[in-house]
């Protein structure tokens, strides 16, 4: 069943929803990337909650004009207008008052959401309101999604992607170094507004599928996940698109295959699973990798210290050091150095003596910066340079192998 859903074999409607969710995921991941890089992830929370009163009021207005209150484009347009107002409120509060951004976000989020709930409650009392299904915008609902809905979604998502790609340089500049951006004549506030406008577009588009409470997750989890795997902005964007798209696709497929499972929350949970895997397993920044690197580094330190102790004829007390050296056949069980151990120890001592020369010579300042007590000199300097250094070593050490 799940397999059929993943291969789009569950019929027209399920396919529509799955593809729609994948497109939304890509747009949200890419759109949210700069929000994350600019360290303003929570702004998206204010934006998404600020859509609710707009959606409600749009319904009321459309009904009052005698139309169908459930027209998706109309509802989303209403949501966009109130989200824009909320966004401008946050922006105004942070730039023009002494309020910090987190406080501004908290204030705007709760006020708009509260107002939205009031409007929804009023709609419940309207005769045409009971079938409105506006609660679906809270947690998302994909039941009865039309082809036209999916088309609107795809179009908006494509537009968002295009906008991010066009603006990627100014957005990168502002996220990394806003002062430099200003000094080169860029209007940082306008670029920030553009970034949040992109986020707003994704949010509004995602209301139908994921719902306003969970859309934040779809904006933030993908870039955070991608960040574990790369050190480059363009790849964060690419990775966030992939993670977001996969979350949307797999999540929607699962919820289509398993009865009574909500789409939005499953999409977010799939994203969270990808995040967890990345956090644990990513090379470099991942948790496991950090632990391994630390352990490896610790072993190198112990080995080096053990060899230097051996070379200077000092006893080795630490258990880890002894074990490591025994494993490598450098010492015997009773702590006496083997033939190989003595050779290694002499080499370590010579290396240390060479470093001593390098670190006391301004001419080698660049190389001296790479001294960490572990790196062998051969990896830093050329044979010629080492010969020059050896010539300046105190006599007895040059004799050693």
């Amino acid at each position, binding site marked *: 069943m799940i397999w059929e859903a993943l291969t789009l074999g569950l019929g027209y409607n399920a396919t529509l929803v799955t593809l729609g969710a994948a497109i939304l995921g890509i747009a949200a991941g890419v759109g949210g990337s700069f929000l994350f890089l600019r360290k303003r992830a929570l702004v998206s929370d204010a934006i998404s909650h600020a859509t609710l009163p707009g959606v409600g009021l749009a319904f009321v207005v459309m009904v009052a004009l005698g139309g169908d209150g459930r027209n998706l484009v109309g509802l989303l347009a209403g949501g966009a207008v109130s989200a824009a107002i909320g966004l401008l409120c946050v922006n105004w509060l942070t730039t023009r008052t002494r309020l910090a951004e987190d406080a501004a976000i908290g204030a705007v989020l709760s006020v708009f959401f509260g107002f939205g709930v009031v409007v929804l409650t009023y709609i419940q009392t309207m005769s045409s309101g009971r079938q409105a299904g506006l609660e679906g915008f809270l947690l998302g609902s994909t039941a009865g999604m039309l082809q036209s809905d999916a088309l609107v979604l795809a179009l908006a998502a494509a537009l968002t992607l295009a906008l991010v790609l066009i603006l990627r340089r100014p957005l990168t500049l502002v996220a*990394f170094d806003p002062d430099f951006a200003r000094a080169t004549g860029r209007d940082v506030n306008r670029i920030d507004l553009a970034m949040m406008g992109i986020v707003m577009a994704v949010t509004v588009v995602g209301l139908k599928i994921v719902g306003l409470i969970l859309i934040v997750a779809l904006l933030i989890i993908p870039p955070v996940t991608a960040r574990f795997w790369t050190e480059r902005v363009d790849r964060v964007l690419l990775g966030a698109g992939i993670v977001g798209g996969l979350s949307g696709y797999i999540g929607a497929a699962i919820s289509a295959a398993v009865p009574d499972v909500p789409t939005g929350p499953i999409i977010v949970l799939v994203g969270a699973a990808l995040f967890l895997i990345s956090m644990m397993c990513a090379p470099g920044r991942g948790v496991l990798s950090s632990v391994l690197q630390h352990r490896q580094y610790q072993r190198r330190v112990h080995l080096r210290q053990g060899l230097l102790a051996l070379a200077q004829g000092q006893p080795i007390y630490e258990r880890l050091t002894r074990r490591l050296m025994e494993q490598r056949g450098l010492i015997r069980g009773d702590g006496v150095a083997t033939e190989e151990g003595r050779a290694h120890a002499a080499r370590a001592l010579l290396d240390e003596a060479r470093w001593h020369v390098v670190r006391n010579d301004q001419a080698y300042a660049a190389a001296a910066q790479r001294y960490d007590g572990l790196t062998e000199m051969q990896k830093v300097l050329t044979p010629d340079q080492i010969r020059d250094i050896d010539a300046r070593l105190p006599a007895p050490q040059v004799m050693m192998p």
Partner: protein
Amino acid sequence: MNLKLARDNGAATDAERRLASPLAVRGLTVSYGQKPAVFSVDMTVRAGHMTAIIGPNGAGKSTLLKAALGILKPLAGTVTVLGQPVAWRRDHIAYVPQRASVDWDFPTRVIDVVLMGMYGQLGLLGRVRPRHRAQAMDCLERVGMADFATRQIGQLSGGQQQRVFLARALAQGADLYLLDEPFAGVDAATEQAIITVLKGLRDAGKTVVAVHHDLSTVRDYFDDVFLINTQAVAEGPVETTFTQENLQTAYGGRLAGAQMDALAETLSGTSAR
């Protein structure tokens, strides 16, 4: 106010010199809230010279620089570059911010930071071509960081980060270089590398203005000084303006005796010269 202006050319009027100056500030006031950080400051930078902006902590040195660049909005005053508003002449100005002003864990490599200096030239969608990359590498070469081009910026030492910022400014290909405390917290090798690059720029006819905090190196590094303590204190060539009297005025007696003694040595060097 004891404002001594440099007299390059006795015949030139103030207005003429401002018109020819790569950075002229007039009546500049910047305030955070109700308290001015910089008050009614005039500054006329000489073209093709290196100027140090000097003053005690909180004297408005960085604020002056940022307002001159348009990063901060001044309450009053004008800034002109060769007689034109600074906004029209941005492509003539390169900027090196304080190192601590950015997050060095940002996902970007050294070469990408240098390329940021060329975004203006690249435009929104222009491809980064081999010649752009070569130009960026050349800038890294000049600050001795070419070997680090593909490193993540977080892996660099403080001095190396500062050099990358300087390389980005070089990539801007400007005529006027504004630096905010370029020598703060860097190693001796980096300080040497930076000053060599800056002097090279000056010798090539460029203008360099740096916020500077190490009084003992002013004489070796700079041609002109601008002393500030919220208000301008003195301006002119190091020989005539970097005097004990002006320093005491700028620092308002806050210079410790020991600092003063150490300075006296370099200062007495002047009169002998």
